[in-house]
């Protein structure tokens, strides 16, 4: 039973303390329904995505039932990146339900997301190290990666440059710097060597929603669909017992998604990708885990220009997370950007990725296909 994306809507990413979660979620949900040409009555199930810690409220979905369109509907939620809510929605669609609405949000102004990342650390040992957080952990991974594979700061900055240039053209992005240069990136403020202001994603507010449906409904109602061909997800070990040089769980997730969609050679058979690179160096490691190139050779893909917007395998035409990281909603933004490009005829098959947890401990990959 094939599942398709029949509607979507994403709010422009922002940083607005006057905007409530309820208003954002409502706007996203309504927008997606309108885009699909459906009414609330046509939706069988709603899966929302929000995080109690990032929202600063226990049961973060409890005040969003009305706003997400879930009133008196069979609903549930995913408490991690919105793409996991899409995964859950697919599981629901393959059983009782025929249509699903998925809506995700985080307002980063509520609580500094980097502070929240410290609450993911083991409270008995790691959390008591005041220097440890998602940024400094990323810095450690970046440094060992750079050291082991002779990757330079410039290689990483080139990935950031590509994405920031792309973001400057994306009306939904949060950080749009027209005329951004490599020097600006390499001069930007250091948070923790080698992580700089312009080589890490800026946390912002975002809310996005997608409407999914089974193929029989899509046929009956003659809806336009972007098909979900394959999905894969996997979790890695906790940071102390992992190989920092590899995005192990992403490799496993991608393999599953490729198998499900019958892909043997991703670089050839997929047209472009939208990935969640919370830190620019991660994009290089993501290329390797996705088997677009060998381990340690992500820098060559960047240097060659293959992943530029006019290259053979564009990655993050939307600007990726360098353009804005709305935490829980991040994955949905990647999905929506990819779906938009497919509908515009930019390519036929796309790969969508998102991560969750310290050093991307969890990863999820989708393969999309146009009609």
């Amino acid at each position, binding site marked *: 039973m094939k599942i398709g994306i029949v509607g979507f809507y994403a709010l422009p990413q922002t940083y607005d303390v006057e905007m*409530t979660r*309820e*208003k954002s979620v*409502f706007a996203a949900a309504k927008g997606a329904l309108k885009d699909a040409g459906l009414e609330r009555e046509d939706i069988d199930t709603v899966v929302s995505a929000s*995080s*109690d*810690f990032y*929202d*600063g*409220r*226990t*049961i*973060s*979905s*409890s*005040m969003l*039932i*009305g*706003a997400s369109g*879930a*009133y*008196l509907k*069979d*609903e*549930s*939620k*995913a*408490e*991690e990146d919105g793409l996991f809510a899409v*995964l*859950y929605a697919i*599981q*629901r*669609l*393959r*059983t*009782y339900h025929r249509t699903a609405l998925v809506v995700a949000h985080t307002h980063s102004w509520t609580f500094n997301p980097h502070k*929240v*990342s410290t*609450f*993911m*650390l*083991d*409270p*008995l040992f790691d959390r008591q190290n005041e220097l440890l957080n998602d940024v400094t952990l990323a810095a450690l991974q970046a440094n060992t990666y750079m050291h082991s594979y002779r990757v330079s700061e410039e290689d990483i900055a080139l990935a950031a440059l590509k994405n920031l240039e792309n973001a400057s053209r994306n009306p939904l992005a949060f950080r749009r710097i027209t005329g951004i240069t490599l020097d600006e990136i390499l001069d930007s403020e250091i948070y923790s060597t080698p992580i700089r202001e312009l080589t890490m994603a800026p946390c912002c507010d975002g809310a996005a929603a997608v409407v999914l449906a089974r193929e029989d409904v899509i046929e009956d109602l003659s809806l336009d669909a972007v098909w979900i061909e394959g999905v*894969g*997800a*996997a*979790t*890695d*070990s*906790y940071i102390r017992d992992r190989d920092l040089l590899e995005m*192990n*769980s992403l490799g496993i*997730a991608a393999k599953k998604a490729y198998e499900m969609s019958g892909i043997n050679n991703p670089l050839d058979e997929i047209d472009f990708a939208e990935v969640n690179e919370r830190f620019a160096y991660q994009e290089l490691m993501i290329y390797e885990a996705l088997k677009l190139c060998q381990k340690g050779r992500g820098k060559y893909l960047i240097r060659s220009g293959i992943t530029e917007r006019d290259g053979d395998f564009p990655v993050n035409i939307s600007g990726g997370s360098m353009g804005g990281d709305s935490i829980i909603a991040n994955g949905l933004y990647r999905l929506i950007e990819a779906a938009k490009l497919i509908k515009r005829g930019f390519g036929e098959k796309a790969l969508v990725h998102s991560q*969750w*947890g310290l050093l991307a*401990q*969890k990863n*999820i990959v989708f393969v999309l296909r146009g009609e």
Partner: protein
Amino acid sequence: MRRVAIIGCGQTKHGRRTDINQAEMVSEAVWRAIEDAGIGIEDVEAFAVGNMQGFGGIAHPEMIFSDYIGAFGKPVQRVATGGTVGGSVAQLAYYQVASGMFDVVVAVAWEKHSDSAEPGATTGLLHVAFANLSYMFKKGLDMRSFAIMGLAGAAAGISAYQAAQYMAKSGCRIDHYDMVAAKARRNAAKNKYAHLKWPDCRPEDIAKTEMLIWPMRFGHVCPASDGASAIVLASEDAIQRLKPEKPVAWILGVAAYADEEADQGESYQGTGVLDYSAQIGCILSAKKAYERAKISDPRKEVDMAEIYAPFPHQELMFSEKLGFFDEGTAWKAVEEGITEIDGDFPICPSGGVNATNAIGSSGLQRVLECALQIMKKAENHQVPKDVEVAVAHAWGGQVQFNTVTVLSDKPKR
């Protein structure tokens, strides 16, 4: 759509568990469930997890625990829906298998209240009260009034109104709440994993306790327990492959309808629910779950129920919404002993949430306990009658989320 059954159950002893840390507690339940199912960790393809992180103080804790439960390399999906999170986790696991995506999954839900330095469930509840209602400071509410309002008990407060509303509509007396609470503690005494055990508890013992906020006595309130429970779910084919002879508990139907939140939010969304005892979400969930399970007359076709009732009035209220008794008459059944362990329609033979409340675990325990009863593995609290169909229920959030799961000893009716 594939048929799914529970093939193994595992629980930790619930109570105040300052002998093990959170990770160890979760792994204890998971490994017990895997052992009970008679499978190996290599057979498990995915995990469904959940707890209310604000109470345990770790954000997205399953990532620290992934090595303890053998989850590395596998997909882990997380839910958090307040009190019903355990029920939501069980249903997520059901969908994981029923959808055809995985053949064997483990669902685990837990709570470790003792990791919070404040008494009871205060820390997590403050998250709800303070965070969800802090916008009132913008409107001019002062800190002192807020503290009085918030600390009257974010969850207990609404439930007290609910208890009063049920009493007014049904004509029951506070004695009936005492009876239900006493039954819970008596049953819990037979359950080796339960928290508040009181073998000869009588309604009079409950009636002697202090009145907290009418009509809720101290003896009515559930404890804040530590504990984890886990179940292993498998598809029909996997069961053939893994354990063809042992009894299993089939899941016939699930539903989870949500109502509006009980308080008006900061964007004035919703009208605010006027009658907390109406529980339309539960009525709809039950109706849909029965439809999917092909049950047309719950009173005749269901043998017992595990109802999520941290406060005794909720056992009465929900047993009506779930269709086991006519509106406003459940309290009569309690008087006649119908809902006792050896009664015609046992409710919460495990002692229920009133005797053991580790939030995450509680919702899952309801499903787990129904499975144990069907498989005749409930030991000392096994109901004497044959259990062919059991219903597990849980509520959560601002008395608005519901999960209803129908289980049976056969894969279809």
